[in-house]
């Protein structure tokens, strides 16, 4: 990815590369990360086909653990489909060469319902080649669909009438 000054281009190119590599070659995703990267991502051990409003996540640190994680779950990882609804980008870090990304959207896998998520990344130019960015931080958080918990206590709220 070229380091044109435009943070949106770099960020957009990264997101495409990141999710497409999950489908195309999970065993190569860890190459996107720095040696000591921290990752909070889907706990693929749970059943993704469920009625639950959101999914749990697990925490990992280091390129090797990240590689083990993606390869162990590659069967599910390769079926990931993503709709990004919005994306925000800012330069950050010392002399402003790193990039902060906040993506919001929906994700699904084969046969599963869609799950709402937000995800934040920090990309930092690789020490050996500033043209290339390493992911140093990757946090995925699922956002439970609003359960319209209609409490009796809600003052003037009559569910039947509202519908």
């Amino acid at each position, binding site marked *: 990815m070229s380091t044109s000054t435009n943070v949106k281009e770099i960020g957009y190119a990264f997101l495409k590369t990141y*999710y497409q590599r999950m489908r195309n070659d999970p065993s190569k995703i860890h190459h996107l990360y720095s040696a000591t990267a921290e990752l909070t991502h889907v706990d693929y051990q749970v059943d993704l086909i469920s009625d639950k409003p959101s999914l749990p996540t697990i925490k990992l640190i280091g390129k090797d653990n990240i590689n083990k994680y993606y390869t162990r779950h590659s069967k599910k990882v390769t079926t*990931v*489909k993503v709709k*990004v609804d919005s994306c925000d980008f800012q330069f950050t870090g010392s002399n402003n060469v790193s990039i902060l990304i906040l993506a919001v959207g*929906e994700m699904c896998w084969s046969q599963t319902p869609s799950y709402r998520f937000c995800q934040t990344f920090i990309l930092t130019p690789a020490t050996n080649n500033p043209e290339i960015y390493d992911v140093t931080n990757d946090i995925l958080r699922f956002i439970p669909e*609003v*359960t319209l918990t209609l409490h*009796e206590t809600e003052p003037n709220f009559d569910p039947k009438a509202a519908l």
Partner: protein
Amino acid sequence: TLTSESIEYPFYINTTEEEFASARAQRHEITLKVLRKEINRLE
């Protein structure tokens, strides 16, 4: 100079709008099932 930027329109990766619609339909059904249970609970 301001460097922050945003993409405000949706885009799809590894899928298309049509293909994604079935996963969303499943999600709608789950949400509405919860809604129905809520309403019955309140009656």
